[in-house]
């Protein structure tokens, strides 16, 4: 039986996984909890068409269901589901032999502020313009830098979560992020006249 919705929001991911094993209908709660986040993530990662994103998203949830027994509870469930979404998106892009394209969206002010503070470019760039063009610049970067920047600044993941999602050692993630930030900052400053 489906649980009463009011209780569902209080349940942890782990509890929802256990409930799914009891009744597969309960899997709907996990899907509802993650569908918006993953939809945005897939769209940002692939820059693809909305229809493609929906297909990838459904494949992700089917794959998650198939592999539920393989979920290691030492990981955050969100890291695990993001990992599957990341891999499915990359596989999809390879299958259709297409490089990710730019999907424009505006970041919320808090995220833009974090990026500006972290990159020490507060004075240089106007917040509103940066918000509009940020993904254009991220998308132009090498995929390995793009992945870490998206996860860190757009998806708000910490180093350990990024390490679990991309299956890279935390030290490697830190190095990639440092390099990515340097390159991103250079690109921002190089395109400053275009932004302003």
């Amino acid at each position, binding site marked *: 039986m489906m649980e009463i919705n009011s209780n569902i929001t209080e349940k942890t991911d782990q509890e929802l996984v256990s409930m799914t094993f009891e009744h597969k209908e309960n*899997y*709907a709660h996990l*899907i509802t909890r993650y569908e918006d986040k993953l939809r945005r993530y897939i769209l940002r990662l692939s820059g693809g068409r909305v229809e493609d994103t929906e297909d990838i998203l*459904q494949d992700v949830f*089917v794959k998650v269901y198939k592999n*539920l027994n393989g979920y290691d509870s030492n990981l955050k469930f969100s890291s695990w589901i993001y990992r599957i979404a990341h891999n499915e998106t990359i596989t999809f892009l390879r299958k259709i032999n297409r490089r990710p394209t730019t999907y424009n969206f505006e970041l919320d002010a808090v995220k833009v502020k974090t990026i500006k503070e972290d990159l020490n470019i507060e004075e240089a760039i106007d917040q509103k313009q940066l918000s509009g063009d940020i993904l254009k610049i991220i998308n132009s970067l090498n995929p390995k830098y793009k992945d870490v920047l998206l996860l860190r600044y757009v998806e708000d993941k910490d180093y350990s979560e990024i390490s679990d999602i991309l299956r890279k050692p*935390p030290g490697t993630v830190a190095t990639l992020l440092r390099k990515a930030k340097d390159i991103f900052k250079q690109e921002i400053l190089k395109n400053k006249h275009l932004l302003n």
Partner: protein
Amino acid sequence: MPKENLAEDTLKKIEEDKIKPTPRWCFATKNYLFWLLFAVFVLFSSVALSDAIFLFKKDNWSVHQYLGRGFFKHFFVSMPYFWIILAILFLLLINYILRKTECGYKYDTKKAVGLEIVAVVVFALVIFFVGLSSIIHQSLLNRTNFYDAVIYDENKTWDNPNRGLISGRVVSFDDQSGFFMVDRHQENWHVFGPFRKEPPNFLLGPGVQVRVIGRMVPPGNNFMANIVKQCCH
């Protein structure tokens, strides 16, 4: 447009395609298999390294002067490249397999490679000291054709009577006239002295494998020895 009811659609697909969660044992088995492969390749790399150590130690570095080449040339010619390359290849595989295990990606690359090297060296030394590397080397020499071609065969060094190096098995020994030995081409040699034994206390008698440094004394297979070394095989 986003699907309006993704959850319902996905559950419907799961139902229609009769999709079930893969059993837990499948994931556990896959992970154990990777760790098993990891252990196997640590062992392979250790064996390769132990045989490299064995060949390296077996080589007689002082004979280069008899072969008319300098120490460094002799060093580079007689390096056990076959085993060294194998040990490195297996080491790379070990690292690849580690990354495929469930939590293998968490290990820092430098630390992981460092620990893998330490493990391989420790096991290689154990294999070497218990004498397995010698057995592996000998059985590969006896049972395969390729092995002799891909390693620097130190026995060939001792197959140089013109340069004053011979080796073989002692057939008979006589205090007065030296000893008779047969080399690997079944040639008989009369070896006589005065010569020094290395090590000084080894017993020179029928069946003992020896390496001899000296010079040929024609006619016939006569060899005046300066040094007679005890040999492992």
